[in-house]
């Protein structure tokens, strides 16, 4: 039973990371209809930025975290401006290839700059544990879960209570109408990329104490977040997070209770299952109301 709860918490933590990546994918897809296959690599880059600020420059963890997130906002806007905006309107295939190419590019750049060794940063959550009687839970995993909750709340308030957030929802629902309202659509799209990259960066920094920081860390996690997005209805932000958590939990339990190898294919089994049985996802009908 204790094993099970521990695995469950690990699964939820992993699922939160999937969910945060999927959330960024969904956000970008809803506003621009671009499926960003490089979202996991943006997360990876966020981790390296944090390593640079905290591990190399020796800044305080929270300051380094904030700087990494800010830097990733810039990267997100740059990607939108230099790569996505010029090819908008091309066939979907070309755009997909471009974002896959971006992933390769980011991975090799990261490898060139930071090398291919596994890197680590000291965080307030490294190695700490919380004990509930016999149950021992790792701080790093709990921190992912708590941070995801906070991030979701902040995003919810931003999208529903602020003028800019509402304009982002409006732009994703009807871009032409957004132009008619005088909403600066290009800037809004650029900000959507910034927000997505910032969320990815948060995931990257939170993940740092759990896995190592490595240029390939975003590849598998990024890919596995697509089943999460699909499970959530590929259009719903709460759906993306819930989908991520479901997949993270099932995958972790499969890894613990089933034979070796099941763990890595599990997200894709779920993906196929969802596509075959319920292609609109768990939140499909309801999800379109949310960003």
């Amino acid at each position, binding site marked *: 039973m204790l094993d099970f709860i521990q695995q469950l918490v690990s699964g939820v933590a992993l699922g939160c990371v999937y969910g945060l990546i999927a959330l960024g994918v969904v956000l970008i897809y809803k506003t621009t209809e671009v499926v960003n296959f490089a979202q996991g690599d943006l997360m990876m880059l966020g981790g390296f930025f944090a390593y640079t600020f905290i591990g190399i420059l020796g800044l305080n963890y929270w300051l380094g975290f904030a700087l990494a997130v800010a830097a990733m906002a810039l990267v997100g806007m740059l990607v939108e401006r230099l790569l996505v905006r010029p090819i908008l309107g091309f066939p979907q295939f070309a755009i997909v290839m471009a974002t896959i190419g971006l992933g390769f590019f980011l991975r090799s750049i990261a490898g060139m700059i930071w090398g291919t060794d596994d890197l680590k940063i000291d965080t307030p959550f490294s190695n700490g544990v919380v004990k509930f009687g016999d149950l021992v839970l790792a701080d790093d995993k709990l921190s992912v879960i708590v941070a995801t909750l906070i991030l979701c709340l902040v995003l919810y308030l931003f999208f529903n209570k602020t*003028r800019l957030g*509402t*304009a982002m*929802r*409006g732009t994703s*629902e*009807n871009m*032409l*109408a*957004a*132009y*008619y*309202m*005088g*909403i*600066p*659509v*290009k800037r809004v799209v650029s900000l959507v990329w910034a927000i997505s990259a910032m969320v990815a960066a948060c995931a990257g920094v939170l993940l740092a104490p759990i896995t190592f920081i490595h240029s390939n860390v975003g590849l598998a996690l990024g890919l596995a977040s697509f089943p999460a997005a699909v499970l959530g209805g590929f259009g719903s932000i709460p759906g993306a997070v819930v989908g991520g958590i479901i997949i993270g939990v099932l995958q972790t339990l499969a890894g613990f209770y089933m034979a070796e190898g099941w763990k890595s294919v599990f997200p894709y089994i779920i993906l196929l299952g969802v596509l075959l049985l319920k292609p609109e996802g768990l939140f499909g009908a309801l999800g*379109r*109301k949310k960003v």
Partner: protein
Amino acid sequence: MDTIASTTAERPAASASPSAAPILKVSNIESYYGPIMAIRGVSLEVPRGQIVTVLGANGAGKTTILKTISGVLDPLKGTIEFEGQPIQRLDADRIVRMGLSHVPEGREVFPFLSVRENLMMGAYTRRDRRAIPGDLERIYSYFPRLKERLEQPAGQLSGGEQQMLSLSRALMNRPKLLLLDEPSLGLSPLLVKEIFGIVKRVNAEEGVSILLVEQNARMALELAHYGYVIEVGRIVMADTCERLMASKDIQEFYLGAKDESARGERRWKRKKTWR
């Protein structure tokens, strides 16, 4: 009846004062969809404080003119002056900010935003945020039905309510010039009357200048001061609405000839006389 070619250099006769500069002056614009030229050298003016209408058959290019003015489409040639400033190269959001609002064909509400949020999006560029509650109240006085549905997603409104919302949303920008694209489309005669009544009040009480595109030529000519007729991307007539209504061509082709079968034939011949 004036018959004009592709330019309308002379000032509309009904202009309030002949010396006042028009709020909108469109000169010789050409717009394309890819390789297809949709409007060819269109010129028109909207005098300050007046209602000007553009009539024309389906596909004539009316919507294209409005899109070109509001900056959603860029003209390849020609100039557009709004309050004396050239706007033909500006982004749409800059133009809205200057006080030119476009109520598009087919309403284009944000379907999953609430009615209130839709209205607030209309006020997106407003600097004087304090005045917004008062403007909302005025909108509710125009369309009490919207007030009852404030928290409902706009996509759940009826077509007529969506048209009210689309118009109200544009008014939340406190525009000086309003572009209206077929506000009567798909509405019951009663609702058309209601909407046109509000348009008239907006013009008379708030002094908003209006450029109105309509299929419902009778309503449009009764409401507007001045009218243009467009065919296949070109302006073929321009005159005051009284004189347009008296014109034989207009009566026959826009105010409804009864004999549909004969109409097509005669129409083809008559069209030639306009050129």
